[in-house]
C-alpha cells in the first residue's frame, strides 16, 4: 500500500459504468429511501396503535398490546427473514414483491411497536384531570385526543421519538441481508472488490453519522418550536 489513505479509489470505475463514489451515493439514497418509507409506516401505525392502547375498550387494548409485543419481542433480522423467506412461501402472490418493499414493511412494523409504546406512555403520563376537563367541556373522545391529549403527549415523547427516528436509519442496514443495495451492502461489496476497507468503511460510517445527526438537529429545532411558554424548559 503506497499511502495509508487512497481516496482516489472513489473515482475508479466499478466496471459497471459508474464510479465507486456514484455507487456510494446511490447506496446512500437507498438507505434514506428505506428509512423514510419505513418511518412513515412506523409513525402512522405506531401512533394509531399507541392511541388504541389507551382507550377504554378492553378488546381493542388487547389487540394493541398484542401488536406491540409481537413486533418488539422478535429480533429485527428474524422479522426481515420471515417477511423475505416465510411469508412469500405461504402466500404465493407475494413471491414477486421486491425485497425493498418487504424490508420497508418489516422495519416499519418493528418500529411501530416501539413508537406505540412511547405514544401510550406519553398519553398515560398526562394528568388525569386534563382528560376530565376536556370531557367536562363537552369534547368527544376524538376531540379530546385531537386537541388536548395528543398535542401534549407529542411534546413529551419528542426526545424518544427522535432516538427512534435515528434508530430506523441505523436499523435499515439489515436490509443488506435481503440484497437491498443500500450503504451496508455497498460497504461489504465495494470493500471486497477494492480491498480498500478503511476508505470504504470510513465513507459509509460518515454518511450514516451525517444522516442521523441531521435527524437529531431537525428534532431539536422542532423541540424549540413547540416549547410551551411558562413550562419547564419554556420561556417565562
Amino acid at each position, binding site marked *: 500500500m503506497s499511502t495509508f489513505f487512497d481516496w482516489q479509489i472513489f473515482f475508479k470505475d466499478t466496471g459497471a459504468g459508474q464510479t465507486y463514489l456514484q455507487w456510494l451515493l446511490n447506496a446512500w439514497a437507498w438507505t434514506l429511501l428505506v428509512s423514510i418509507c419505513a418511518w412513515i409506516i412506523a409513525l402512522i401505525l405506531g401512533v394509531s396503535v399507541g392511541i388504541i392502547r389507551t382507550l377504554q375498550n378492553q378488546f381493542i387494548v388487547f389487540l394493541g398490546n398484542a401488536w406491540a409485543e409481537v413486533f418488539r419481542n422478535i429480533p429485527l433480522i428474524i422479522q426481515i427473514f420471515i417477511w423475505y423467506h416465510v411469508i412469500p412461501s405461504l402466500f404465493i402472490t407475494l413471491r414477486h414483491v421486491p425485497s425493498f418493499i418487504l424490508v420497508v414493511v418489516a422495519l416499519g412494523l418493528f418500529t411501530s411497536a416501539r413508537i406505540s409504546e412511547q405514544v401510550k406512555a406519553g398519553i398515560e403520563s398526562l394528568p388525569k384531570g386534563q382528560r376530565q376537563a376536556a370531557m367536562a*367541556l*363537552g369534547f368527544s373522545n376524538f376531540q379530546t385526543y385531537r386537541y388536548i391529549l395528543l398535542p401534549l403527549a407529542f411534546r413529551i415523547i419528542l426526545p424518544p421519538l427522535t432516538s427512534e427516528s435515528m434508530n430506523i436509519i441505523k436499523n435499515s442496514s439489515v436490509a443488506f441481508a435481503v440484497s437491498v443495495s443500500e450503504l451496508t451492502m455497498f460497504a461489504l461489496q465495494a470493500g471486497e472488490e477494492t480491498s480498500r476497507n478503511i476508505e470504504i468503511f470510513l465513507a459509509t460510517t460518515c454518511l450514516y453519522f451525517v444522516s442521523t445527526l441531521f435527524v437529531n438537529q431537525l428534532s431539536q429545532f422542532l423541540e424549540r418550536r413547540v416549547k410551551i411558554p411558562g413550562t419547564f424548559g419554556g420561556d417565562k
Partner: protein
Amino acid sequence: MIQINNVSKWYDKFQVLNNCSTVINKGEVVVICGPSGSGKSTLIKTVNALEDFQQGDIIVNGISLSQKGIDLPKLRSRVGMVFQNFELFPHLNISENLVLAQIKVLKRQKTEALERGLKMLNRVGLSTHKNKFPGQLSGGQQQRVAIARALCMDPIIMLFDEPTSALDPEMVGEVLDVIVSLAEEGMTMMCVTHEMGFAKKVSHRVIFMDHGAIIEDLKSADFFGNNKKISPRATEFLSKIIQH
C-alpha cells in the same frame, strides 16, 4: 333542575357512594362538605357523568343519566365544571383555552367565541392576560380563567370540586370572590369545599357526607346556626375544621 335518586357506586367491592339522594333547584347554591374520602368529589362528578354509578338515577335538566345512548358530550357542555387543579390546557394560551370548546363543541363562530371569551375573562378581572399561557399565571389566576372557561359555555349549573384546595392561602380570596359574585347573580351551583366561612356566606343548603353517604342535607342557617339540629358526626367535623 338536578335530581339525585338513591345513587350508589362501587369500586370493585368498595362502596364509594351509598344511596345518595338530593334535589338541586334552579338558582340554589349547595355546598358539599365532609372528611376526605367521604365521596364528595365522586358525587359531583356523577352529575356530569365523569364518574358512573351502578344504582339509582340522576336527572339533569330532564335527562336521565342511567338511560343508554344519551349524548354525553352535549349534556356535559351545559354543565360547567371547575377542578381542584385548574386543568387549563397548558399548550394553549388563555384566549385559546376560552374559545376552543365554544368553537368545537357549541359550533360558535370564531369572532363570537372570542367576544364571549374576553367578556368572561374581563368578568374575572384578567383581560390583560389573554395572550399568556397558563404556566405564566399564578394558581389563583389560573383558577379564575378556569371559571371563565366554564362560563363561556353558558352552563345551566356550575360544579366546583374543591376550587381553592390547591391554592396558596393568599389566593383563596380572589377565587372565592368570583364564586360569590356568581352566586349573587343566581347561578345554580354545587360546590365541594372546606372553606366553611365561605360556605356559610354563600350557600343556601349544606350537604354533609361521610363514608359515601349523605348524613345531613340542611338549610345553611340550620347547619351552621343551631348545632342541636345536626348529627354528632357533623358537629365533630365542624368543630375540628372551625377551630383552626
